[in-house]
C-alpha cells in the first residue's frame, strides 16, 4: 500500500472538493487549527492546506480544497479514490487554543468554511455555546450544512445573493449574532484575508478576543524559509511555527494581502499554460513513484 492514499472524495461544487486521506499517525496527532503541506507529484509545489477534519478511528484526515490555481486544479483533476499523494506532511503549526469561552462565534468564509468546522466541534465539546456563521456566494456552493448544525447551537448561513440563509456577507451574520447576544466572549474567523479583517473589525468595538488563521505564502512549513512572515502587533511572526492562529485585532492584514500577491503574475502564467496544455491534450505524464 502506498502512503497517503486517498480513500474518499466528494465534490461540493465545480471548484470545491474534499479529499479524505489515510494517515493514521496524523489523524491521531492533529488538533484543530493545524495544517498540512501536500504535494501531488514530484514536480508539484508544496501547498499548505488547513486540516478540515480528522477521524482517529478511521485513521484519516480531511482536506477541503478550492481549485483556484494550477496546483489545486491539477489536484482536482488527478486526485481520485485509490490514488496517492506524493507528499503529505503535518500536522504543522500550533494547535488552536480552545480556551474557556462560554459563548463563541465561529466564522468561516470561502476557503475557511471547512477548517472552522473542527474549531466549532472542539468548542462545543469544551461546553461552549457555539454560533456558527458561514458565507458562500450562492446556494449551490453551500456544503457541510448538516455537519455544522450538529455542533452549533445557532447556525447562520450568509449568501451574497440571498439564495440560501440571509442575504449578505459573514459580517452581516456577525452583526446579527452580536445584536442578539451581549455575552459572546470569543470569536474565531477563518477565510480570505479581507473577510478576516472585516470580521476582526466587527468584533473590535466589543473587545471580543478574535482569533484568525492566516494563510501566507510558505515553502517548507517548518520555520525555515521565512516566506510566511506576518506582522502581528509590531512583531514579525512566522505563520508556520508561531501560528497560523493570531489575534485578529493585532494582525496587519494589509501587509498580508500585499504579500499574498507576491507570485500573482507567475501563478497566472502557470495556470494559463496548464489549461492550454489540458485543452491540447498534452498534460505531462504524472510521475508518481510509490512510497519511498
Amino acid at each position, binding site marked *: 500500500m502506498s*502512503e*497517503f492514499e486517498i480513500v474518499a472524495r466528494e465534490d461540493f461544487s465545480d471548484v470545491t472538493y474534499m479529499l479524505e486521506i489515510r494517515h493514521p*499517525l*496524523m489523524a491521531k*496527532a492533529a488538533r484543530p487549527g*493545524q495544517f498540512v503541506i501536500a*504535494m501531488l507529484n514530484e*514536480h*508539484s*509545489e*508544496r501547498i499548505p492546506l488547513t486540516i478540515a477534519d480528522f477521524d482517529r478511528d478511521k485513521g484519516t484526515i480531511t482536506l477541503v480544497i478550492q481549485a483556484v490555481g*494550477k*496546483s489545486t486544479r491539477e489536484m482536482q483533476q488527478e486526485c481520485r479514490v485509490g490514488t496517492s499523494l*506524493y*507528499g*503529505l*506532511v*503535518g*500536522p*504543522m*503549526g*500550533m494547535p488552536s487554543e480552545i480556551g474557556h469561552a462560554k459563548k463563541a462565534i465561529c466564522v468561516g468564509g470561502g476557503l475557511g468554511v471547512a477548517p472552522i468546522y473542527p474549531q466549532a466541534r472542539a468548542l462545543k465539546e469544551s461546553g461552549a455555546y457555539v454560533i456558527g456563521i458561514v458565507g458562500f456566494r450562492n446556494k449551490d456552493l453551500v456544503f457541510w450544512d448538516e455537519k455544522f448544525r450538529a455542533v452549533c447551537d445557532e447556525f447562520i448561513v450568509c449568501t451574497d445573493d440571498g439564495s440560501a440563509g440571509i442575504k449578505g456577507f459573514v459580517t452581516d451574520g456577525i452583526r446579527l449574532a452580536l445584536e442578539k447576544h451581549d455575552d459572546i466572549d470569543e470569536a474565531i474567523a477563518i477565510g480570505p484575508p479581507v473577510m478576516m479583517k472585516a470580521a476582526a473589525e466587527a468584533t473590535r468595538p466589543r473587545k471580543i478576543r478574535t482569533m484568525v488563521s492566516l494563510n501566507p505564502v510558505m*515553502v*517548507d*512549513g*517548518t*520555520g*525555515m*524559509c*521565512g*516566506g510566511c*512572515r506576518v*506582522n502581528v502587533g509590531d512583531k*514579525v511572526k*512566522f505563520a508556520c*511555527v508561531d501560528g497560523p492562529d493570531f489575534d485578529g485585532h493585532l494582525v496587519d492584514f494589509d*501587509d498580508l494581502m*500585499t*504579500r499574498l*500577491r*507576491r*507570485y500573482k*503574475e*507567475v*501563478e497566472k*502564467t*502557470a495556470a494559463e*499554460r496548464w489549461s492550454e496544455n489540458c485543452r491540447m491534450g498534452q498534460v*505531462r505524464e504524472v510521475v508518481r513513484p510509490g512510497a*519511498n
Partner: protein
Amino acid sequence: MQKELEQQMAKKKTIRTIPQDRTPVREQAPAERVRNFTEVNLGYSLAEAKREAERCLLCAEPKCIAGCPVGIDIPGFIDKLNTKDLRGAYDVIARTNLLPAVCGRVCPQENQCEGVCVVGETLESVAIGRLERFVGDLAIEKGWVNVPYSEPNGFKVGIVGSGPAGMACAADMAKAGCDVTVFEAFHQPGGVLRYGIPDFRLPNSVIDAEIANLEKLGVKFQNNTLVGRLFTIEQMIDELGFHTVFIGTGAGYPTMLGIPGDSLNGVLSANELLTRCNLMRAKEFPDFDTPLPIGRRVAVIGSGNTAMDATRVCRRLGAEKVYCVYRRTQAESPARAEELHHAMQEGVEFHWLTAPVEVLDDGNGAVRGMRCVRMELGEPDASGRRRPVPVPGSEHEFECDMVVYAIGTNANPIIGQTSRLQLNKWGYISANDELETSISGVFAGGDIVTGAATVIEAMGAGRRAAVAMKAFLGLREPAAAPVLAPQTPALFGIDRRERNFVRVRAG
C-alpha cells in the same frame, strides 16, 4: 642503482623535492557556467590527483589530522594514492568519514586541514579537499562501499533530521548493528545538503549516492515526517520503541534585518531563495511548479557561504546585476576563499563596508532600492572581528529590485515547542560534553546545539553523539578498548582478574 636512488629520494621527500605548485583543478569557464547549474569545479583526473598527492610530505606528526573535525588519516590516504592503491585510499577515508565526496566539496579546508598543512608554511598547502573529493567521486563511480558485517543487536535508534549530523550518526549506529530510522520533514532526504547547497557546488547525484550508501548499511529514511508535531521526542522513547534518539534538526530559522521594508515583496531570506531553487527546482519552472521570479538587480546582504550561494544562484537565474552587500570587508568575510573567488569570477559586484538601513517601497509593495550607510571598522568586538560602525552622513540610495538576506540563522523552534527538552537562552538544545540532552537517552548535535556551523562539524557532532549513544546502550566501542587495571601479582601463575579457574591436584 637508479631505482635505489629514486627510492631514497622518495623517502626523503622535502619541501624542495615535491612539485612546487598546487595542481590546478579544471573548472567550467565563468561566462559559460553562469548560464547553467552544472558543477563549476570539475575535479582532479587520476594523473592530477597523483601529482598533487606527491606534494604531501607525509609528516611524522601530521597537523592536518588534528585540523580535521573528524580526524581523517590524511597522510594515510594520500600515501595510498602515492602507491596507486585507490581502493585503499577510500578505505582509509571511510574509516572516519562517510561522505568524502560531499566533504571534499563543501568543507572550509583552508581553515581546517589545509590551514595547518606544513607544506602551506612555505608553498601552497596540499589540496587535501580536492584529493578527498577525487577519492569520494571514484568510490561513487566504482560503487565502493564498506559495509561491515554487524550482528543486529535489537536496538532501535531514531534520528531526527537527515542532514549531515543525522547522516553521520545514523551510519555509526547502523554499523554497530542498530536498527536505524532517519526522519525528515521534507519530501527528500539530505537536509541542508539538499535544500541549501546549490547543484553547481554539490550535485544532487552525489547526495543520492551518499544516501544510497547509508541505505546499504540498513538505514531507513522516512520522509514527510515532522517530528515534534506528528509525534514528539518523548513519544519516540515512550511509545514508538526507540531505545535512543539523536536530534540533528539544524539551525534553519532565518534572521531578517529588522529594518523598515523587511516585509516588502522582493525581500526574502537566502533560505527561501535556495530552497525554492534547489529542493523545489524553481530553476526548472514551469516544468516544476514552484516559482522564483528573479529581480533584474539583486542585492544579497551578508558575505558567508550562504550569501555566495545566493549570489551565484541569482546570476544563473538570469539577474543582470548581482551585488553582495557586507558591512565589514573582504578580510572578515566568513565565506570560503574559493566561493568568494568564484562569485567574483561570475561577475558578482561586492560592496564592502555597506549596510542597509531601509528597504524602499516602489509604491506597489515591491522593492525599488535600499537606503544604505557606509561603515568603517572600529574596535574588535566579542567575536574578535573589528566592529563595523556607521560613518555619519554617509546615507545613500542603492538601486535594486530584490533583496536577499543571508545574515545567519537561528535554532529551529519546533522541537523546543513540543518537548520538555532543556534549551539555552538562544533556543538551542542544551547538551553536555557527551551530547546527551536533559532527557536520558536523547542526544543532540550539530547546528541545533552549537548554532550555525559547517557540514563537517555537524558530521563530527553526529559521530561524537553516536559514541555516547553506543555507551548508553551498553554497546562495546571497538576503538575504545577498556583500559586494563594495574597489574596485580599473579596467583599460582594465573592472572587474578581471570576468575573462572579451578585448582587441580597435581600428581
